[in-house]
């Protein structure tokens, strides 16, 4: 048995039973990174010493007879927009190059408390602004399933690391689809929880009212395990919900109900023009699998979907323009060497430090908030946002869960949308509405062959347990199992080694 083939649940259990040492698991993953990351480039920074130290501590605890923590010895990667104490965190931006946080984000600190080992910090679109990870201020990450294509974004590094077997689980953040879309494109499970389910303390803000930390895992079971660890109230985030966190994994393992009796709505706006036939076919088949497993399926409508993208591109840049004001060269990060007065320092620091997409969004947001434009843009966008949320509320009066594609397309070739921001923005058309409404959504791989496709399941606020149950039911009914992307070149995510897609 190859250590790298174990799920997080299996690995933690094996370590707890002393069949495997955490430090050996960490070494295996560090070796996998060494072997594959030269080409995939999922990591901005690998932290071998830290991984081995974390793992050694878990082994020592188990030696002493301390009860093994839930993620004891699980090698994990963290998107580089979450602050890690003493480990450089630069958000994929030159403006933050060299920034070493003096504090730890809540989500990551819960990972370490649960026994996970930090393998390193993963690549992302600068400040999480993008859908391909091509906007990283440092380098591009490749999709391990097809290295000529993008891994999606902005959590492309985290998704690629999990898909390539360079990490057993990873954290990402999802502002408009940044966990789900790369999960779909890389053939892994991506969960965007309810806004407020996971603390944002220590998450470097892009758009504060939309940002949510999520998980990237091999399967739905690992997703339940990881989400249970990072979710829950945090007094340091005023927007973090006090709502109790159920034992997601125990519910999955105990529940045999599966998809039976679950009412699933399929919003017609999510299968309209612009959706690639391969995507539409895979998702339609996946919904059929759930129906065969006992779910009730019907079409529904979310009429304001077409306005969601536009509203998002007002709200998110507006918040970003304010959130990114602190990168001024005064206290940390990059400061331009050029002389001159204060104004020059600001201009040169920000001019040199930010990449073109970040600058574009800062300008968009600055205009949207300008006095005289505020009502026409920001206020109007917030009204649209309320309408999008109302659409969902109406749909959830009839359905338990909505099913849709995660991304309109499969992974696209590197560079193919780089010059066309609007085409790039369309990548998130099907994921953005959940962020605007603050509801949870999960992306589960559903392609039988070819490049990965994500089945997106959306539920009402705090319905993560139900989404996990339905996602898990789909995995079982479809017989999908995770397989690591290994060889260079084009490769399918599943089915070839581990069973059938259907």
């Amino acid at each position: 048995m190859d250590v790298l083939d174990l799920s997080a649940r299996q690995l933690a259990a094996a370590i707890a039973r002393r069949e495997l040492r955490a430090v050996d698991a960490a070494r295996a993953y560090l070796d996998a990174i060494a072997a594959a990351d030269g080409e995939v480039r999922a990591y901005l920074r690998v932290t071998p010493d830290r991984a081995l130290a974390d793992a050694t501590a878990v082994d020592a605890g188990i030696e002493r007879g301390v009860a093994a923590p839930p993620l004891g010895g699980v090698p994990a990667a963290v998107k580089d927009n979450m602050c890690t104490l003493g480990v450089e965190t630069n958000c994929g931006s030159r403006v933050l190059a060299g920034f070493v946080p003096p504090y730890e984000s809540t989500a990551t600190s819960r990972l370490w408390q649960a026994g996970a080992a930090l393998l390193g910090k993963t690549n992302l679109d600068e400040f999480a602004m993008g859908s391909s990870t091509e906007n990283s201020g440092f380098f591009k990450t490749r999709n391990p399933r097809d290295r000529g294509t993008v891994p999606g974004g902005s959590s492309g590094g985290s998704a690629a690391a999990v898909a390539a077997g360079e990490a057993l689980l990873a954290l990402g953040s999802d502002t408009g689809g940044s966990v789900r879309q790369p999960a779909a494109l890389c053939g892994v499970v991506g969960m965007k929880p309810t806004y407020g389910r996971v603390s944002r303390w220590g998450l470097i803000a892009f758009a504060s009212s939309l940002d949510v930390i999520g998980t990237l895992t091999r399967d739905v079971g690992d997703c339940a395990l990881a989400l249970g660890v990072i979710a829950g109230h945090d007094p340091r985030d005023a927007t973090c919900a006090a709502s109790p966190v159920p034992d997601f994994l125990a519910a999955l393992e105990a529940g045999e109900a599966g998809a039976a009796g679950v009412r699933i709505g399929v919003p017609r706006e999510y299968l309209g023009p612009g959706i690639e036939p391969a995507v539409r076919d895979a998702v339609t088949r996946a919904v059929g699998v759930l129906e065969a497993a006992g779910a009730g399926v019907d079409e529904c409508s979310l009429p304001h979907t077409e306005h969601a993208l536009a509203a998002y591109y007002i709200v998110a840049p507006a918040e970003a323009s304010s959130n990114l004001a602190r990168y001024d060269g005064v206290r940390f990060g990059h400061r331009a060497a050029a002389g001159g007065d204060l104004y020059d320092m600001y201009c040169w620091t920000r001019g040199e430090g930010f990449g073109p997409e970040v600058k574009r969004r800062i300008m968009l947001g600055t205009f949207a908030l300008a006095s005289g434009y505020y009502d026409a843009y920001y206020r109007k966008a917030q009204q649209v946002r309320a309408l999008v949320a109302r659409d969902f509320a109406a749909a959830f009066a009839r359905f338990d869960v909505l099913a849709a594609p995660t991304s309109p397309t499969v992974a696209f070739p590197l560079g193919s949308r780089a010059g066309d921001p609007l085409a790039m923005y369309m990548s998130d058309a099907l994921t953005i509405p959940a962020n605007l409404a603050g509801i949870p959504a999960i992306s589960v791989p559903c392609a039988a062959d070819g490049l990965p496709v994500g089945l997106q399941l959306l539920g009402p606020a705090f319905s993560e347990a139900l989404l996990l149950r339905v996602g898990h039911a789909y995995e079982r009914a479809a017989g999908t199992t995770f397989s690591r992307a290994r060889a260079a070149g084009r490769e399918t995510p599943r089915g070839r080694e581990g069973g059938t897609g259907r």
Partner: protein
Amino acid sequence: MSVGEQYQVVIGLEVHVELATRTKAFCSCPVAFGAPPNTLVCPVCLGLPGALPVVNERAVEYAVRAGLALNCHIAATSLFARKNYFYPDLPKGYQITQYESPLASGGQIEFAAGGEQHRVGITRVHLEEDTGKLVHQPGGGSLVDFNRCGVPLLEIVSEPDIRSAEEARLYLQELRTLLLFTGISDVRMEEGSLRCDANISLRAAGGPPGTLVEVKNMNSFRSVKLALEHEAARQARLLSAGERIVRETRHWDETRGITFSSRSKEEAHDYRYFPEPDLPPLALDPGYVERVRAALPELPAARRERLQRQYGLPPYDAGVLTATPQLGDFFEGCARLHPDAKTVSNWLLGDVLRILNETRREIQDSPLTPAALSRVLGLIDAGTISGRTAKPLLEELVRAGGDPDQLAVKLGLLQISDEAALQATVDEVVRACPEVAADFRAGKEKALTFLVGQVMKRTAGRANPQLVNRLLRERLAGGTPGGGQGGGQGGGRS
């Protein structure tokens, strides 16, 4: 003032008050003055990436307290907002404040001054955070100290109801007293815990509103009055000369006694306000607001009225005793121990305040206690000391404290009420001043005053004046020394 009858002065004040919370508005860093630079900071108030604000509950309570004291409506839901601008003392690049929905609005302050009743509307009261401080280096360059960054501030905006510079000063004085009573701030203008900006315009009689000018950098009550007097006169001069008032911000220069235009390239600020997404709307349920209202201490207007009613004090005394809550508390503490409240007030407002002023102290900073003051008054009443010798005793008590009885002995202030002892001095004085004695015998009553004075002088002020008076009258009426059997009885007891 030269503005004359031609123009009406229209003033609105914008006051910032630093709240006396233990910790900052949105993080748990301590609020303290004088700490070494950048020692009272954390990821939140330094605006580090990923740090998030959490509202200080005590700051909210203080803001509600102030809103209620200012007769405002407290919003069931108010919103925090971001005010965006770049400056090195503003680490996040925005200030967390309130914009569209402030915590409190629609209040008013009423006060009497100069025999007139004044009423100034309060537009809004909201909570925000302070900035850091730039320290400009003599050799060029600037350093930033973020200790003050994130200290909670209350912004109190008045309606343009103020009609003169003097009324502005009175409003500010009244506002300060009111806030002192609520206990939310130490409101010291000189230390920057109370700051004031003004909007001032002139309006021709019956004409449209004039152009607003903002005046900043007024650092004392006096400078508010001087700056606004100057600015009103400046505007009147321009208008009378047929010139136009420019809408601008002007700084008060205290040493030159003028305002000057402070336009800079940042003048056309667009703060791009929008609701703060890191903080949920601030919802205050009516029960909470009522609990804060119930816990409000007695406010100055109510105390002023009560001091007059309960102790029979004249309005002037009640007004001075209400300048700070501590002064009134002190008075009431004494009045409980001494039967004559007006006498207590006279001594407190007279000698005690004088000595406090000389030593630049507030009543609460002095070791003098209500019990000690009332004991001093008791000693005067008993004739143990005189009103005159009470003064050095009070000096000592205000400066250093102590036991009044022991101090009176130690300082040799005890009144001489021993008839035999005084008789000798009386005899001496009568012998030494035969002409004056003769004047008195001839019916000149005033001559006696001189003779009493002489006795007081020879006893260093310690002689019981009533007794001296009686002894002198007896002596000059031809009585023998020591005569008047019953005299001793009345001696020191009046």
